């Protein structure tokens, strides 16, 4: 690394007194508004922890790729010619041009549009035009593409980190693998396939979305229009997230913080634990009654299990800093600037390798597409409007603090088990306090990030 002179040489750790910014019950507005903090996060968060990059089903064949980002770093996530998944920096070694401008494709070679340098899917430099104009022979590894040194998958979810000191992926995920396993295992073969997405963005800091990811307090307020809408035709008002009405903390749902910034909202205990229980509370969807009648006619009582595959699994599984599994969605947070964030709700479809669903597969997937379109259209847009309004509110310079102390200090309310996992009622902000503590620890650190190149 180049020696940098001046104040920035101290890195994030020297920017602020982080203990002053992140307190037990509140955080300073600057963590959402300061461009210097955002710049430091690109190293201390987005470079230093395992960041979700994509799903294996998006690149099923050798040489399949998608383009994505690690923080702001443009990345080509590719399954190379030998089947190894790599996260190549999408940046020509020569002058820095991005090599690939497509969102997805299949390529055994990337040729730079600017001067024609070409690279193999392993990132190795293949050729440069007119090499006799160079004194060197390009055998030096420094001309191969930089790539993320550590790329690993957990059950199809691909993560990468630039931090050689980071724990293994499985250690990093820790207790959140339990909920991820359950989320996958309710699908045939324990698998899903990623499909198209509801792609949204908002003018606000990325942490506003992560703060909200397990927030059970906002539901009946931020989503009031959705709750009223989806119960407008119901016999009893029990569709969707109606269980948040009344006294949500008295309900059996709960939030759990599992460490390393990851947390989990489990709303399943609110739903009748029976086949068809999930489908029974799913809001109205195009084709719903038709497909239900057809499946019941064909499969009898077994239809309930199939219909549940189109129901929105009532969990929020949040993997710090950018992955959220909720309903049947894979939601990804992507920072754009200190006050702009992309939130992409990838849909998932069921795959049926064992053929247990037969010709019901296409129908249940069609219905699953329609149920998945509901929340981004009628729920998420209102959350994003509220996040933008937080960002606007935070322009009040003198009103410095943002509170996250719901549930704090009430004896017996927040429980820590032997594994160190923390459980609290559904509307508690305990997960916010815990993940932001982890964020603070990371911002106080001085990670030594590296890239790797083919030898």
């Amino acid at each position, binding site marked *: 690394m180049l020696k940098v002179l001046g104040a920035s040489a101290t890195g994030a750790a020297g920017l602020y007194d982080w203990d002053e910014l992140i307190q037990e019950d509140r955080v300073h507005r600057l963590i959402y508004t300061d461009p210097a903090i955002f710049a430091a996060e690109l190293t201390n968060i987005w470079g230093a922890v395992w960041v979700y990059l994509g799903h294996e089903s998006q690149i099923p064949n050798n040489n399949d790729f998608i383009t994505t980002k690690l923080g702001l770093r443009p990345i080509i996530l590719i399954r190379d010619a030998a089947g190894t998944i790599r996260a190549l920096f999408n940046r020509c070694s020569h002058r820095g041009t991005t090599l690939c401008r497509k969102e997805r494709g299949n390529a055994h070679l990337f040729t730079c549009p600017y001067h024609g340098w070409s690279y193999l899917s392993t990132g190795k430099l293949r050729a440069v035009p007119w090499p006799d104009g160079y004194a060197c022979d390009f055998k030096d590894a420094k001309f191969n593409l930089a790539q993320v040194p550590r790329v690993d998958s957990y059950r199809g979810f691909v993560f990468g980190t630039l931090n050689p000191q980071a724990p293994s992926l499985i250690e990093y995920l820790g207790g959140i693998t339990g909920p991820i396993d359950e989320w996958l295992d309710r699908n045939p073969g324990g698998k899903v396939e990623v499909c*198209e997405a509801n792609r949204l963005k908002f003018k606000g800091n990325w942490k506003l979305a992560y703060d909200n990811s397990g927030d059970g307090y906002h539901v009946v307020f931020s989503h009031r*229009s959705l709750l009223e809408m989806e119960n407008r035709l119901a016999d009893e008002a029990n569709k969707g997230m109606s269980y948040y009405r009344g006294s949500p903390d008295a309900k059996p749902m709960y939030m759990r913080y599992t460490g390393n910034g990851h947390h989990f909202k489990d709303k399943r205990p609110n739903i009748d634990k029976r086949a068809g229980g999930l489908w029974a509370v799913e809001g*109205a969807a195009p*084709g*719903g009654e038709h497909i239900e*009648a057809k499946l019941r006619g064909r499969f009898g009582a077994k239809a309930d299990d199939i219909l549940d595959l189109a129901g929105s699994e009532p969990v929020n599984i949040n993997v710090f800093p950018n992955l959220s599994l909720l309903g049947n969605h894979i939601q990804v947070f992507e920072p754009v600037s200190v006050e702009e964030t992309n939130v992409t709700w990838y849909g998932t479809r069921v795959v049926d390798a064992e053929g247990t669903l037969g010709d019901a597969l296409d*129908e249940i997937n*069609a219905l699953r597409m329609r149920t998945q*379109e509901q929340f981004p259209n009628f729920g998420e847009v209102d959350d*994003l409007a509220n996040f933008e309004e937080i960002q606007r509110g935070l322009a009040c310079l003198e009103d410095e603090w943002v509170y996250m102390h719901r549930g704090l200090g009430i004896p017996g309310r927040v429980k820590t088990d032997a594994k160190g996992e923390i459980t609290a009622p559904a509307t508690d902000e305990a997960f916010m306090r815990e993940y932001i503590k982890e964020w603070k620890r990371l911002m106080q650190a001085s990670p030594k990030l590296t890239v790797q190149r083919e030898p």
Partner: protein
Amino acid sequence: MQSVHDPSLVSHYVSDAFYRELIDAFKDWQRDDRAILDVHERERFRALIEREARLLDRLDFDAWLAMYAPECIYWVPTMPGGGDPRREIAIAFDDRRRMEDRIYRLRTGYAWSQAPVSRTVRMISNVEVFAAAFPARRMVRSNFLISEFRPDGVRFLSGWCGHRVVERAGRWEIEVRQVNLIDCDQNLRNPSIIF
């Protein structure tokens, strides 16, 4: 064939056969050999689409909905060209009931993404009419530009629409409206209006 069910209350018409026919109808229809150049036809459908734009700009959702056939689809694909809605998420793929859901939500007073309500002005142009595979139907292509004002400024949404219209009892109704935003596969800020 119309089913016996009220499509405002239950959804029986969005069947596998319906999807297949829809995908087929929206594939490869903008062909010179199917273009209908008759001025009266073109004017009829231009007027229909301009009226729809006015009703949406004026938030007259009841009159807007009344322009649609009972069994209809409002389709905003995420993929240029539409894709297969059975296998892919759309920005919106609403049947009549979900169109009514959409309107109901906007009217609750609690749709924060529309508080305050966007002011819009739609420009419609390049209206072209094409023969459809089925009798009493036409396919209509039009380009649109929506200027949308929200308190932080005016933005422009642009793209083109494919309307499939059907003549029933002497009246032309919209059966399918496919809205193709030019940035449909990109992250969109606050897509909460009816496009």
